[in-house]
């Protein structure tokens, strides 16, 4: 059984011309230190290409 905690479920595929974006909603103290992530175990099918997020500069929403 795949480990689901701290994961994101998405609908996707190689032909999908879209991506997920991430943005701040308000000023933030910054990304917290995170524990080593659990690596989800592939269940069926192949890998799907992914890109990583980058650190974001704290920014007010208005």
């Amino acid at each position: 059984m795949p480990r689901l905690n701290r994961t994101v479920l998405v609908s996707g595929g190689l032909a999908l011309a879209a991506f997920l974006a991430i943005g701040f909603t308000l000023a933030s103290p910054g990304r917290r230190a995170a524990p080593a992530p659990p690596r989800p175990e592939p269940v069926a099918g192949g890998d799907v290409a992914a890109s990583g997020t980058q650190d974001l500069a704290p920014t007010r929403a208005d």
Partner: protein
Amino acid sequence: MSLASIEDPDAPFGVTNLECDRIAYAAGRGICLRETGGLLSRFEAVLFDSAFRPGATVKLDGNPSRTRISPDGRFGAITVFLTGQAHGYASASFSTKTTLLEMSSGTVVSDLEQFQTWRDGEKFSAADFNFWGVTFARDSNTLYASLWSAKKTYLVGGDVAARKLTVLRENVECPSLSPDNRRIAFKKRVGGDLAPWRFYVLDLATMTEHPLAAEARSIDDQIEWFDDSHVLYGASRGPVDAGGPARAFLLQATSPIVVR
């Protein structure tokens, strides 16, 4: 449907056997909305468990649009387009249907149009009511959704047990409640048909709202909160870095749901 690590989206991630257009997941229960094969378009919701095993299937009356599950996994909400899918929520005329499910069985609990709606202390009802975009609070009995009537959209707050909705505010679409239940991210109509929306965030304690500085484009999605200060949403390909501090999180993906 695929899954990715929150902390390390670069890591290889799993791919499930479920094919879904829209996804919801909470407390070990999931909803997968999809179109089934065949000559005629048919749509269904497949409920699944934490091992992605399909369970009950619910026939849908139209094209899938939004779905959410209450944080405790008790209720699910599904919005479909009955008409007007081609131009979506930007269309001048469309019809939606939003149903609540008991997630343990897949039983339909109610349609939001069966709830009694109140505005300014008086009953509010019209033949052109359309509800969409449910988001649930932690208590699973409180929900928020969009209501359209007479060319206006409203944020409604709901009490599932009492089958009651109350108009809280105008010009709110696709609300999404933050994990701490303090804020609602939503689409606000600010422009014409070519770029109608801008993401905003509403503070529920003060009922003050602010545009989401990170994203200036008009995007039609129900935001998913990454945590209490970040949001995730699907977007078409294009530079996100030019207009603000938003960054691409994951390629070739839509309908994100954070497993908390």
